């Protein structure tokens, strides 16, 4: 029981932390991130995220990911594949914003 509580607590904290950092993105930054996703992720994943050299990033394709995990994939890339690590260019808050954006499937 204490263990479950601890896990629950950790999860809750993680979620809270995640939320906090996603909200750190200003509206201006969000606009430029949206542009980055469509144009620069789009050069491999397709403007509509239906895939290209990179796998599809439509909501259906990535719905099994937690936002935090997805953010890590974006930051660290997929080693041994053409998916580059974006850590040199994006902050963790940026990556989380993109993860949530993709999971909401906002990109048409």
């Amino acid at each position, binding site marked *: 029981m204490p263990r479950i509580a601890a896990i629950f607590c950790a999860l809750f904290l993680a979620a809270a932390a995640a939320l906090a950092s996603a909200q750190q993105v200003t509206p201006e930054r969000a606009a430029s991130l949206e542009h980055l996703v469509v144009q620069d992720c789009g050069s491999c994943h397709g*403007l*509509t995220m239906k895939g290209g*050299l990179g796998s599809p990033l439509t909501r259906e394709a990535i719905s099994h990911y937690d936002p935090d995990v997805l953010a890590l994939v974006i930051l660290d*890339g997929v080693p041994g594949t*053409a998916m580059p690590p974006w850590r040199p260019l994006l902050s963790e808050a940026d990556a989380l914003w993109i993860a949530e954006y993709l999971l909401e499937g906002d990109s048409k």
Partner: protein
Amino acid sequence: MKRMTLGLAAALMLAAAARADTTATGDLGLVIERTTGSVLLVDQSDRAALARIEGLGDLSHASLVYSPDERFAYVFGRDGGLTKIDIVKREIAGRVVQAGNAIGGAISDDGELVAVSNYEPGGVRVFDADTLDMVADFPTGSKTIGLVDVPGRKFVFTMWDSGETWIADMSGAEPRITKIPDMGKNPYDALVTANGRTYITGLFGEDGLTALDLWEQDPQPIRVLPGYGRGEQKMPVYKMPHLEGWALAGDEFVLPAVGHHEVLWVDARSLKETGRTRTHGQPVFAMARPDGRQVWVNFAHPENDTVQVIDTLTKQVIHEFKPGPAVLHMEFTPRGHEVWISVRDAGKIMIYDTHSFEKLREIDADSPSGIFFTARAHRTGL
């Protein structure tokens, strides 16, 4: 008698009407507007946009080829759309969605066949240039890249996943396929020289490139720069370089390096390295001015606001400037006196004099990417 005069008059009127309708297409071009699914018809001599043609689907990473008479363009969209545009009538003359996910195309030397390479389903499909009916289907089980036309009604293409190159000979009643394995790990793009002899594919999964001598009876993979970049830390690659805009400058190829801030010089005959030039960022296109005296280079995100010009005699950067945010493509006028540059996030095409580097004109365009002048109709492998 009276009837004859009338007939003659009618014939003359028809001729006059025909003349008034004539459009010379030799100095025209099309610019891909990637987010709006449209293309812009431009006039090179007037440095002007003439018309916008809409309804072409997802045009990220789109490219096109021209019919031999420079009247029709075949546009290859990312969403598998193959659109035939009549640039005289300024309208879509035909359109098929031939696959789920496509990457580029080519037109046969006789202008009768248009081929498209696809990611999904992986392979190449060949269409009648007139009707857009499918005439051949070559499934490869792999994302297929580096599709080019070579003389003799042939197409050559390469597989990202399996590292094979196939030559499809379409000259007989039935297509004949020659398969060449072991081209290397994850080829990402390829080029062919204007004489159709040397096919070079760039590798993402290992250092170096692989060449084929297509004049050989039985072409075998030739490793180019196999040790290139070994031991150096490769940088993350945010945009795959393009080899389509290959540069043959004098007797050397100039090639963008993957994951490094340099372009590589390779002797066109021996395929041995002859030099490297440090560049501002990771090169995407390294394009030779048609006379081969200069090479213009643009770069991957986040250095994509800059263009460098390299002198091919000294291999030195002689000019650097910042046209604006997201320089995606460059196209020279056929004789090379001007270059048109698409600056996506500025929403402009910018035109420069290649001798004085002076900016001559800006043309508005919606997220412009590839620029294609009709003179490409007469070049192999573009």
